[in-house]
């Protein structure tokens, strides 16, 4: 079923109808809200442990990484204070990011029944998938505050800047998610590539190690990964310390470029979705 709220409409061949239709997205904002609301409701209805998963996932990963990288790999020597806390801070945001990207990437294919029966801006689907992870993030962030009490680490006053890095992470996730979701529609096996990409991406991001372990001459290249600035900035906001300003700026720039590229690709292929999905 479809409805379009606008009064006059011309339906034309693909190609004559591109560009991100901002006005239309704005008209459909309530549907975005409903998609997010549905995803969140369904997620918690279908699980036994419900909200616990939002904590279990980063905690379990933190434990594994603490043992393998911290103890055996010797990375914990880089960190002043608890390596586990250091890793958990990064992982709480990273887990949000990784889930957002993979949910978003598979979201279009998972909504094929909608796409073949209803019109609405297709962009809402991968974008909604990103917003729906926010509840999980809020829970794991709350648990982070509990951990900080446990480790007797007072939050730095810089924590007020945290939302900037959360927003930045959503920007990166939107770029990657929108691009991947459109690719997966055309190339179904691309989703295996995505799992792999997200896993590798973690190691290219300072979640398990400090920024200092990157040699100075590689910093620039390293900073092209937009998640570097987001994770480093997020950790600085939570645990304090000097801002990695250059990396943060680079992160927002590359994230914006990624989003623009993703939107361009998405809008050129979105009208074909119903024919190939």
């Amino acid at each position, binding site marked *: *079923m479809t409805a379009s709220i606008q009064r006059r409409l011309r339906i034309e061949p693909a190609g004559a109808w591109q560009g991100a239709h901002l006005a239309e997205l704005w008209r459909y904002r309530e*549907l975005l809200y409903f998609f997010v609301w549905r995803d969140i409701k369904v997620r918690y209805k279908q699980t036994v442990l419900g909200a616990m998963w939002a904590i279990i996932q980063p905690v379990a990963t933190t434990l594994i990484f603490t043992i393998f990288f911290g103890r055996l790999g010797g990375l914990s020597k880089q960190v002043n204070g608890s390596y586990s806390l250091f890793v958990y801070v990064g992982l709480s945001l990273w887990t949000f990011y990784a889930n957002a990207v993979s949910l978003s990437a598979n979201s279009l294919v998972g909504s094929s029944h909608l796409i073949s029966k209803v019109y609405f801006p297709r962009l809402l689907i991968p974008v909604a998938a990103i917003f729906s992870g926010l509840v999980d993030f809020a829970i794991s962030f709350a648990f982070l505050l509990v951990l900080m009490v446990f480790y007797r680490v007072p939050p730095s006053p810089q924590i007020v800047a945290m939302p900037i890095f959360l927003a930045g992470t959503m920007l990166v996730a939107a770029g990657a998610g929108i691009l991947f979701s459109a690719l997966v529609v055309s190339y179904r096996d691309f989703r295996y590539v995505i799992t792999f990409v997200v896993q590798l991406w973690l190691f290219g991001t300072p979640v398990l190690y400090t920024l200092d372990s990157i040699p100075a001459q590689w910093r620039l290249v390293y900073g092209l990964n937009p998640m570097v600035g987001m994770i480093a900035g997020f950790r600085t906001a939570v645990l304090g310390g000097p801002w990695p300003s250059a990396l943060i700026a680079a992160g927002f720039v590359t994230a914006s470029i990624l989003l623009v590229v993703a939107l361009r690709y998405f809008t050129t292929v979105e009208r074909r979705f*119903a024919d190939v999905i």
Partner: protein
Amino acid sequence: MSSDAITIAGVSKRYAIGRSLRTSNFRESLVSMVGAPFRRLKRLGGAASPDTTDFWALNDVSFTVGVGDVIGIVGPNGAGKSTLLKILSRITPPTKGYIDLDGRVSSLLEVGTGFHPELTGRENVFLNGAILGMLREEIRRKFDAIVAFAELEQFIDTPVKHYSSGMYVRLAFSVAAHLEPEILIIDEVLSVGDLHFRNRCLGRMRDMRDEGRTVLFVSHDLTSVRQLCNRAILLTSGRVGLEGTPDEVTRKYEQMNRDPSVGNAGSADRVHPPPHYHLRRVELKKCGGGITRNFDAGDVMEIHLWSSGRAPENSFTAEFKLFDDHDDVISFGTANPMRTTYYTADQQHFVCRLGPLPLTEGTYSFSFTVRVWNQERWDFWDKAITFDMQRCDLFKTGHSVSGARDGQFVMPQEWLAGD
């Protein structure tokens, strides 16, 4: 200014068949990208063999629908009705031409799109309403009316996975019925429910007509086209075959159906299959005999159906509906749950042994559906094949019963002398 609600101008839609429509995998794509220049060279060299065939599902279709018109679109399978609906609904773009719509549009290709089984009735009303383009405020305002219309007050906070299929459809239809578009585009597949539901759909459409809304209605049900519409269009092979009054158009369509245009080999291949998983071929056989389209009462018929490939899910069913020559359903069968055959996704050939046939003389047709029982249909092949019942002399008395006079089937009967 014209008072047309819908202007369709030279609309064409091309699909590439031959190559799978479900676009390949990434590796194949890379390979074909690398290979493209070589293929072009080959083609220049004259060794042209296009690896795809273009199929025009719609070919230069033009017509207009005035404000307040109720227009019925009829036509055989593969005529392009669904494609036209999808273009009008903005689900797929036209390849050529354009459509102007003047007015708020709602299009219903199915009821209950986006319903989630885990969500309650209440939650689904809001979700589905939003998907239909209603604003939250509007849904809130109409909520009580929607629930009352569906007669589901006690169950509205129960997850819809616990609903019976009737309740589910009632709720879904109720949401759709509370739309207030200026132009309604609607598929008759909606009216596949029971008779009661079908009548409600038609009733609601009649209301829409009386309220002066514009309705474009795609249908196989010629009776409802005659009853509801003030104009009709016959689509054949992607073109407008005839545009006129509902009577003219439905009569022409009926004549077309009588033509033995599909050939008499006894089998039917689907010439213009819908994309993706679908039924592709059907044959009728006499049990222990060969392919035929002529049966006598008492014969056991074997329906052989073939699908296009691997099914989307396991444990699915194939279903038939049997129609008489007035297009009325006279019987129905399904592999499950009426019987207990559950097909696995790999199964591509389905056989239904039917009979002994109790049918009287006349022409009958089958439509077929494949799906997981009670879920959305993967394919619905309407009027897939027709067959003739020749002699109906079940009791071997030399008297054959004709369907035109005496109904569609003969029941077992004994006649005795009373006291």
